[in-house]
């Protein structure tokens, strides 16, 4: 009770401070326009008249993440990969058995979870595939779909997931396949350079000033935005299975881990 009063007092102090700041002439976060760099991005992101500066996607944030600043995203994916490798390395020597008692929560919770997981996976796939047209993309879809293994591990049990084939090795190889897909899409322009002789750059999306290589922006009548859709699909695969590995490792019970650690100490 005393802490709630202290919290309310903090909010009232903030109100008084902002009254003083407004009377003193502070400006607040209401700006008139945006910077000229932002206007450049917004004007050129779906502009077929400026063919050498465009990304052919109506969604500005996804095209900045995978086209204009694609190398930032590549290295961020590498950082995430290294963190998962670090987590796996902290658990070396502990093997996850596949057989165990499948005790979960009650029947009502299990039935509701079965419906919710199907809805979750469908929505996550939709976010990934529409990432270049509406707000969405690879990370968003991967984070949304990562909730499904967490709920399955808690409601059913870890052994339910592992008996049906989602083990640590399978998840690691699927994650590596997703990263391999991203690397392949990034290196396709170099292959085209070697094959045909036109200059092309790594992670290139549409035509540039001195390079006429381009991923197709429209397939039939559908707007595909060049390489953005392939990046989104492979990133979705990689992020989902990264989170699956982390939660499979976190749910191992402490007795198994203590036996493995104590066995290591006796060996020395």
């Amino acid at each position: 009770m005393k802490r709630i009063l202290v919290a309310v007092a903090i909010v009232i102090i903030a109100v008084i401070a902002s009254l003083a700041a407004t009377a003193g002439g502070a400006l607040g976060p209401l700006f008139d326009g945006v910077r000229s760099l932002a206007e450049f991005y917004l004007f050129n992101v779906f502009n077929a008249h400026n063919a050498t500066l465009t990304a052919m996607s109506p969604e500005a944030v996804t095209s900045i993440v995978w086209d204009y600043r694609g190398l930032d995203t590549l290295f961020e994916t590498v950082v995430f990969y290294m963190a998962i490798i670090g987590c796996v390395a902290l658990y070396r020597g502990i093997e996850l058995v596949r057989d165990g008692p499948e005790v979960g929560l009650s029947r009502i919770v299990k039935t509701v979870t079965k419906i919710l997981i199907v809805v979750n996976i469908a929505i996550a796939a939709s976010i990934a595939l529409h990432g270049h047209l509406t707000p969405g993309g690879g990370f968003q879809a991967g984070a949304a779909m990562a909730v499904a293994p967490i709920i399955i591990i808690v409601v059913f049990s870890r052994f339910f997931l592992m008996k049906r084939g989602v083990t640590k090795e399978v998840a690691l190889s699927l994650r590596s396949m997703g990263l391999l897909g991203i690397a392949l899409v990034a290196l396709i322009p170099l292959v085209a350079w070697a094959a045909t002789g036109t200059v092309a750059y790594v992670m290139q999306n549409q035509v540039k000033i001195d390079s006429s290589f381009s991923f197709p922006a429209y397939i039939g009548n559908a707007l595909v935005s060049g390489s953005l859709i392939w990046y989104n699909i492979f990133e979705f695969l990689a992020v989902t299975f990264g989170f699956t590995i982390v939660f499979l490792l976190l749910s191992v019970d402490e007795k198994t881990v203590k036996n493995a650690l104590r066995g290591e100490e006796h060996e020395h």
Partner: protein
Amino acid sequence: MADLTMVLLAIFAGISLFFAYLAISERNLVRALIYSAVQSSAFAFVFYLLRAPDIVLVYVPISVGIYPAAILFLIRKTKEVEEP
């Protein structure tokens, strides 16, 4: 009179300040985690009001789903109540 966006922004920023203080000063770790999750939901509204729908789609599963789940696993394994 006043813009609806600014009024809602002020309300949710105030809610987040309130629950941030409660989360840091609470002794029981599970309750501190629940207060932190409520504060993250208030921030999700703030991100939506600042016209950033991509960030909302990343922020809600991570900050209200994955962080509390991982920290709850951690609390259950260490079985600790915070001491002064």
